[in-house]
């Protein structure tokens, strides 16, 4: 424990209560990673504040001491965004889990950051409303973490991401001040800091209250499963559905290897021998969904479906979704270790990238199971390896990186929903130029000039906020002070 941390302990006990400050090395170790277990770092101190005021006081204490701090929700993130700082404080939001208010007329709810994603929809359900973003970890993941990561989910194709469903945030700034961004209306004056903050991966401050939009529960939901011999055929069905002007709530695809894994894990009983399974979900008013369903079914058949199953009640739909929702964990049944990748390509490039992944897999001997949000081109290749075999982990890492390169070649992205975190910061310069990254960090410098808030995440190299590039400084003084250069003299 550094001297700075040691000096913070009594102050943190005052703020959070002695029982909510963790210093015991064994207990600290339980926080050493989030959902990305390949990166580990034991925090120097863990605090569990219960109120926004306690979070603000804890952050202010860190800021005064120059100690870095990291916020953590449920720890389900897959990019190491909540990886602790070894000389810093981990601020755990799990005690802040009340749904403060549901306003069904305004279709808004105010929740604390530790509330789970699914709990929001449960609180809204009695009013016929729901919270749309639904990451697959929604049973445990926190809304605060969703805001940090701008989480999506299977249904974001139609309903959008967290940033489209958050209309107000109370945050603690990196200097320890409480402020609101947005007022819950969804229409703001001035800069859209609410939008810029959402998805900033915990680097601009800590969320303490969230105003979310609620949507009316759809009248009907129909889910359709179509089996194909190949992912290429399934891909054609996807293009045809989109081309017909239909925006389904979700379009998901799994390839043969991920189907095999899902069968082993949850016996989802998908059509035997299928090389690809497509799941299409339509939601909305009954009169619209019926018309769309007929079109989708016809297009799926035309693309060569060997079997089509349809479900319109929750139990039957759950059977169809079972295989897809279990896919990540299921590959554990067919491989001792695996990497979950999260690349994005334009939807029309899916076929080309899948072919490239297949050839990468063939040439490296590393198996790759593909699960993807086909509607928006978000791939989740599961790169399988055996860590007991020397060199396999490295080979898998190489394949995983090559997949991202392939996505970028198609004009895609290195992450669709899992975030950059620590995991992908080294890929950022492949997607963005130095000027792009420098400009993004101007936002960081505005919020966190001391770079204490979740440092080391997102950006490969931090910007020194005091160090303004020369030509910009010249411009500043030219505009403000006629005698340019005097500032340097004095």
């Amino acid at each position: 424990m550094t001297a700075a941390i040691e000096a913070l302990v009594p102050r943190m006990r005052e703020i959070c209560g002695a029982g909510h400050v963790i210093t015991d090395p064994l207990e600290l170790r339980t926080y050493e990673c989030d959902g990305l277990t390949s990166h580990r770092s034991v925090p120097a101190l863990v605090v569990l504040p219960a109120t926004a005021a306690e979070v603000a006081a804890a952050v202010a204490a860190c800021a005064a001491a120059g100690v870095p701090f990291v916020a953590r929700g449920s720890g389900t993130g897959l990019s190491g965004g909540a990886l602790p700082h070894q000389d810093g404080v981990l601020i755990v939001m799990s005690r802040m889990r009340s749904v403060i208010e549901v306003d069904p007329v305004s279709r808004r709810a105010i929740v604390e950051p530790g509330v789970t994603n699914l709990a929001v929809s449960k609180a809204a359900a009695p009013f016929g409303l729901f919270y749309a973003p639904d990451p697959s970890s929604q049973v445990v993941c926190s809304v605060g973490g969703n805001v940090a990561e701008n989480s999506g989910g299977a249904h974001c194709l139609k309903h959008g991401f967290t940033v489209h469903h958050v209309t107000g945030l109370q945050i603690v700034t990196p200097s320890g001040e409480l402020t609101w961004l947005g007022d819950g209306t969804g229409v703001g004056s001035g800069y859209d800091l609410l939008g810029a903050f959402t998805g900033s991966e915990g680097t601009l401050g800590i969320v303490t209250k969230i105003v979310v939009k609620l949507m009316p529960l759809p009248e009907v939901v129909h889910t359709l499963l179509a089996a194909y011999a190949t992912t290429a055929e399934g891909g054609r069905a996807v293009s045809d559905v989109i081309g017909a002007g239909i925006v389904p709530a979700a379009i998901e695809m799994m390839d043969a290897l991920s189907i095999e894994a899902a069968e082993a894990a949850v016996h989802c009983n998908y059509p035997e021998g299928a090389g690809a399974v497509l799941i299409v979900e339509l939601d909305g008013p009954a009169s619209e969904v019926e018309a769309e369903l007929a079109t989708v079914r016809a297009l799926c058949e035309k693309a060569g479906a060997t079997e089509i199953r349809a479900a319109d009640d929750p139990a039957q739909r759950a059977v169809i979704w079972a295989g897809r929702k279990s896919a990540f964990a299921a590959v554990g049944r067919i491989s001792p270790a695996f990497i979950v990748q999260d690349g994005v390509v334009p939807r029309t490039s899916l076929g080309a990238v899948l072919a490239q992944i297949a050839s990468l897999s063939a040439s490296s001997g590393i198996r790759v199971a593909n699960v993807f949000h086909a509607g928006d081109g978000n791939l989740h290749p599961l790169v399988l390896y055996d860590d007991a075999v020397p060199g396999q982990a490295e080979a898998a890492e190489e394949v995983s990186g090559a997949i991202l390169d392939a996505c970028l070649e198609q004009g895609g992205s290195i992450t669709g929903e899992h975030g950059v975190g620590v995991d992908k910061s080294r890929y950022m310069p492949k997607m963005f130029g130095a000027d792009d990254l420098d400009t993004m960090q101007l936002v960081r410098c505005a919020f966190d000039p001391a770079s204490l808030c979740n440092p080391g995440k997102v950006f490969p190299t931090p910007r020194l906020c005091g160090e303004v590039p020369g030509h910009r400084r010249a411009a500043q003084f030219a505009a403000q002070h006629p005698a340019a250069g005097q500032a340097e003299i004095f």
Partner: protein
Amino acid sequence: MDTERSVVPAALSAACPAVREASPEADAVAGVAPSYVASPASTEEAAALLRAAAALGLTVVPRGAGTGLGWGQPPSSADLVVDLRLMDQVIEHAAGDLVARVQAGASMGYLASVLASAGQQLAVDAPAEATVGGVVATGTAGPRRFRYGAPRDLLIGITVVRADGVVAHSGGKVVKNVAGYDLGKLFSGSQGTLGLITEATFRLHPLPAAEAWVTADFAPNSPSALAAAAAAVTAAAGSALVPSAVELRWADPPVVLRVGVLLEGTPSGVRERASQLAELLETAGGTPVVALSETPFRWWEPESGPPGTVVRVTFWVRQLASVLEALAAAGASTGLRPVVSGPAGAGVLYARLDASVADPDAARFVRALRDRLEGVFAQSADGSGLVRGGVAVLAAPPAVRAAAGPDRPPPGLDLMRAVKDQFDPGHRMFPGRFQWGP
């Protein structure tokens, strides 16, 4: 005339061939005459231009078609107007991906025509002559804000030129993408104060096969009419019939209190939903009319000449009846009847006063409205500091602005100022645009 001032500096001409002295009238920005107007033909030229402007210490006002320049405060200084209209191309329309990359100076009407040829649209209601960059910079959104959101919700990638001439991108051309900070959000609604938008990439939507407006009129002089209209708005907005717009219009003369709901979808689906919705509006006390394929709510287009004063009220929809009462009371106390209209289901209304209204009267109306609405918003105070709504003077003659005083600043003002200082440390980009701004 100060000829020395108006001769175009060589550094500007070197950066951008299409640069000229400004015409004091034609190029005036909300009454402020600029010195020079430059029309860059590319992002590179725009970057060179802003580098030159930075070296000269010039204040800069970005301009598209100029349709939004009157909405906001006039610049405190405008040495250089950067006219984006030479950059008018749709660079890429990836129809299969429902994505389009567009130069900032392309008009919304031209973009719509290109997209429509593939049965697609950018789901933003804006004047056809407005430019894409202007619509993003002002955050313009019409009735369909209710379903599709504002430009920031459809923008997936952006190219900007910073005040110092550095070119930066964020986002990309895929809809789902969380890599890096989202500069698109920051520049949406930034009114040209952070830098110059030169390119934007959008998520598109299919054009609906059918659409219909269901409208219902409420007897405006009955005492319960405001509450009934508010109930109709909240019922429509909260229904599972998935409206694309939930509008309200309250004007006098002709006396009308009307709720309008837009439905989009398949022909059979729209027909059935329209009749269900008509029932819903009738239950609330309205007299419904179903009009297929008609767009009666184009409130952003001025009906008779330029508006004098436009005030935007934003609120949580639960408060709609109280907001309408506050508007009525502010009108009654000043003897004025504003035209009130907007996407009420999305928590927005605009109150317009005619240009013929005397400045002191308009200012009194604004103050009276603010007072009453602050009371309404205070009712929902929950101790967290959240104020659930706001009043913003969007357009007004200078005398009205001066007499009405400033709006309550938005939450997070200190952080906004810090962002401005980082992006534009010399405060040269559209200075004075925000009344509480740096």
